[in-house]
């Protein structure tokens, strides 16, 4: 995945994950479709996982801790997507749309 000009260093991974995080933030702010926002959230969580594993590889004496943490991140992401998608489907049934600008009141 990394071109030959980049060395296998911690900084490269951090750079990649920073770029992914920024892309996720951009998508979070710019999109108005709920599912697209969910996809951006996935990108952010994945950039966090890359960060955890990079630090785990390069600057942790105990190589297990980071991996355990990433497993928890993946499990929580799965739970979050499960809930969010059910909310999206409910919203679609009620409102016929998933544009977040049209969801203004709390007590539907």
């Amino acid at each position, binding site marked *: 995945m990394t071109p030959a000009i980049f060395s296998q260093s911690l900084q490269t991974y951090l750079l990649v994950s920073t770029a992914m995080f920024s*892309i996720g933030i951009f998508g979070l702010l710019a999109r108005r479709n709920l599912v697209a926002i969910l996809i*951006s959230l996935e990108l952010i969580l994945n950039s966090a996982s890359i960060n955890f594993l990079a630090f785990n590889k390069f600057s942790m004496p105990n190589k297990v801790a980071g991996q355990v943490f990433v497993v928890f991140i993946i499990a929580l992401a799965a739970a979050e997507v499960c809930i969010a998608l059910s909310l999206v489907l409910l919203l679609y049934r009620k409102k016929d749309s998933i544009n977040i600008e049209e969801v203004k009141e709390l007590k539907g």
Partner: protein
Amino acid sequence: MTLGAALMAVWLKNVFYNALSLIVCLFGVACLFIYLNSEFLAIIEVIVYIGAISIAIIFAIMLSRPMFQKNESRNLGKILRSLLIAGFLFIGITRTLRATQWPVVSVEGDYSMKAMGRAFLTTSLLPFEVVSLVLLVAIVGALFILSGKNAK
């Protein structure tokens, strides 16, 4: 490739293409995990993210038809503002990254699945159980939200 797919995942107008490029991006992330010596997590990434989460997202897209067909309109000012915020974040974090000396302790170590399993059942037993409980609650909650009483 990962970053290109990530860009496509947020930029394209059709949500279906977003989901497809998310799959490509997650595959790239799994390859990065292999580079980072954690093959088990790469496998988990492919199974859970690509196999479960992306499929669930695609199902949701297919189930709500207008989202699948209609492209959303764009608001240029909003996009510019988001681009500004994301760009500032990226530049700031990158400059910090360049300015810091990162210590490298060692690359060698025990990356094996065996050590991970042992850690799950000894040092991090409590978070492990809590995560399983959270998953259960999430599933029950999702079913409750979508159950007939709530939906009209």
